[in-house]
């Protein structure tokens, strides 16, 4: 089947193999490989995107269900050559190692800051509890986002 939806502000149509996920469509049909597939079960958050304003694991969303929806992926959060403040804070704090979890962390953090400009340390941790990072131990990620929350690093 063909689904029509909006990705990063652009109207797209994509062929969907049943029962494909939104993640499959983004990566394989729309050449948007920024969202990563690491567990296929919604446990690790590497595939996180924002779907109609909600943070979701795109591996758990049936592609057929996104007809008419609006999706933002990591490729769409900043203009070419620019960084979203979350990305900038993470770069400065050294919060990237292998980087496989990074797009999902960026999306979860953007979702957090969209709802609250100055989240507390515990709010930051709760917001990112669905994202597994195997490299950093999360320390630099927390420092990046705490800095952003207090404005100290902005």
């Amino acid at each position: 089947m063909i689904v029509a939806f909006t990705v990063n502000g652009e109207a797209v149509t994509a062929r969907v193999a049943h029962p494909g996920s939104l993640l499959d469509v983004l990566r394989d049909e729309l050449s948007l490989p920024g969202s990563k597939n690491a567990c296929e079960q919604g446990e690790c958050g590497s595939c996180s995107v924002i779907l109609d304003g909600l943070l979701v694991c795109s591996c758990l969303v049936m592609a057929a269900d996104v007809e008419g929806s609006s999706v933002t992926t990591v490729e769409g959060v900043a203009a070419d050559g620019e960084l979203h403040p979350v990305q900038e804070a993470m770069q400065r704090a050294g919060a990237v190692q292998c980087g496989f979890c990074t797009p999902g962390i960026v999306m979860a953090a953007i979702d957090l800051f969209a709802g609250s400009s100055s989240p507390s340390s515990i709010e930051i941790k709760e917001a990112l509890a669905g994202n597994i990072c195997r490299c950093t131990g999360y320390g630099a990620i927390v420092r990046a986002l705490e800095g952003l929350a207090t404005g100290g690093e902005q």
Partner: protein
Amino acid sequence: MTTRIERRVTSPDGVIGQSPARPDAVPKLRGEFEYAQDLTADGMLWAATVRSPHARARIVSVDVAPALAVGGVHACLTADDVPGRSVFGLEHPDQPVLAGEEVRYWGEPVAIVAAEDPRTALRAASLVEVGYEPLPPLTDPAEAEARDEVFRRLRIRRGDQERRGSVVVEGEYQVGMQDQAPLGTEAGLAIPDGVGGVDLHATSQFVHIDQEQVVASLGLRPDQVRAHPTGIGGAFGAREDVNLHIHLCMLALHTGRPVKMVYPRAESFAGHVHRHPAWLRYRHEADEEGRLVRVEARVVIDGGAYASTTSAVLANSCYFAVGPYRCDSVAVDGVGVRTNNPPCGAMRGFGAVQVCFAYESQMDRLAASLSMDPLDLRELNALQSGDPMPTTGQSIDTPLPTREVIQSLRAMPLPDAVTRPHHSLLPGGSGLTTEPRHVRRGIGYALGIKNLGFSEGFDDYAQARVLLTADGAVVETAAIEVGQGLVTVLCQIARTALGINNVTVSHVDTSRIDSAGSTSASRQTQLSGGATLEAATRLRGRILSRLGGDHLDDSGVWQGEELVAPWTQIVEQEWNETVTFRHPPTSAPDENGQGVIHADFAVAGHRAVVDVDPDLGLVKVIRIDTVQDVGVALNPDSVRGQIEGGILQGVGLAVMEELILEDGVILNPTFTDYLLPTILDAPDVEALLIEQEGSWGPFGAKGVGEPPTISSPAAVVAAIRAASGKELNRIPVRPQDIAL
């Protein structure tokens, strides 16, 4: 002719000792960094693997016809189709590329399929009809040893074997099977070159060893196979061994099309080696003051079905069985057994982690027997530079600041007790199961030691090339960046040596440069960093000598205040310098396990603060304070990243990460069931670095990747013991171990 311009650059930014941003950070943050999973090629096919559902079975028949009958399927290959050497292996080639007569572990590959799309490949793989005659699997290590199913035995005897101490502590310990669980699963793309050869772009820690093994099993000439470094989502040891590499190349050459494969997570758990589970029996004897008089250890590790690196892991377990302590009467007997459990091999800490849990548990018990402070006991016995290794007798001739580690750790401030912790930070977490009034806090310490670089006489080297282009300098290497930050530190080293800002790292394939060795054993900063430093230093010397200057920067060659050759003039001719760097030679052990076995060592210590819910047996690791011997920190932020990340893997091993086996079958091969620490499980970490020059690494640097994982599990368990009063002789510590 010379040009006079105002001198603009005095010294470059981003040299050693600073923490410049990673060159790959922005593409990774923007989702633009290309990982093996993201590779594509025109006309690309997708591959899938048929795996054994049995831990052990005779293969009676394999019928590929039903798979080949599926539309869009281009190939289905079995053991009979392996063109060259039928087996592979890092140290001893004993693992079939595809199982032919017998499968020896759950998930062993039997056939491979290539099809037009991934879905078709998976469906076709499910249709391959393999007739199995199940055989009883050998899964008990003790039984394996009794049957002499052994990869290696290692016997260490040092000093007077009759020495006895007045205080004796004995214990038995067990370590479960941990998985590296890198976020990126195994993935790769093989592209036939049209003239019988193949280019392989696949997840790896060591492309030259992949290339050698592909060459052998495909029966090709070495120049026909090029293995390319590619973007990797973590490694931690899981990518040292071949898995999909030979399969991809077989399918690409068979079909004449590029072939891609990505393991799903469940397949990844079956598709790479794991940390060896271990069974450890110890006897420590000390005098009345607490000096270690004798240590006896018996080490059994389960290598699973095939050799992988079991013999080297066993060696590490045995050589570091005493820990960073002086002792002149030592007996260690180690064995790595062969079973029908999943193959085990490299994981961060490589044999040193398992024994550390045991010897540090013993040290705490010894301290209790002596009514001594656990750190006082450790300080009294601290192994220092100049001492002989307690096991091998090797004189330690690089810095080993064990005493400084202990003293600094002791001096670090403890966190205040939190009177009303947020529920998410209680042992029961957001499940709201923990009654805050019942929570008990515990504090525990542990120290660990490990070798850096390869040991036992292995010819360990790394080649790097530094060349100049119109834009600056390029460091060419086949060393794999797995996320640790080698790409940054090589730039820093080259900048420092050359004196210029504009340095990049280029990851080149096996045909363009000699081996950098494996990204493992905490070795790349020292080995590839050493090669880069020497190449850059020599190149600068040649340029200055040829062009008559005393200084190089991004604008060109200077003599005093005069620019004698602008950059454009320098690069009118070709400049490059290639260096193969070797660490000091090591030797194989003698019949008593004695010798100059190791090239360098690092020591670290951890203090864990935990909160325990004794009713439910749940643990929250609140904080880890650590002191680590780093030689010289070339990039402090990267060192901190390695420390924090390595500690969390140690915390995972201490309290949650374990592959559960039943008759050789992994019962929890998913991220739902194999638990990994989340951000809410992560402790606060405070780290102090001990910097002492004297190692042979560039500028005195030591590798820093593994020590954080070695003693952190033991420290966490010591803290849980302090809180719970339980013995806890096994990691990971399970709720029932505390609550029941």
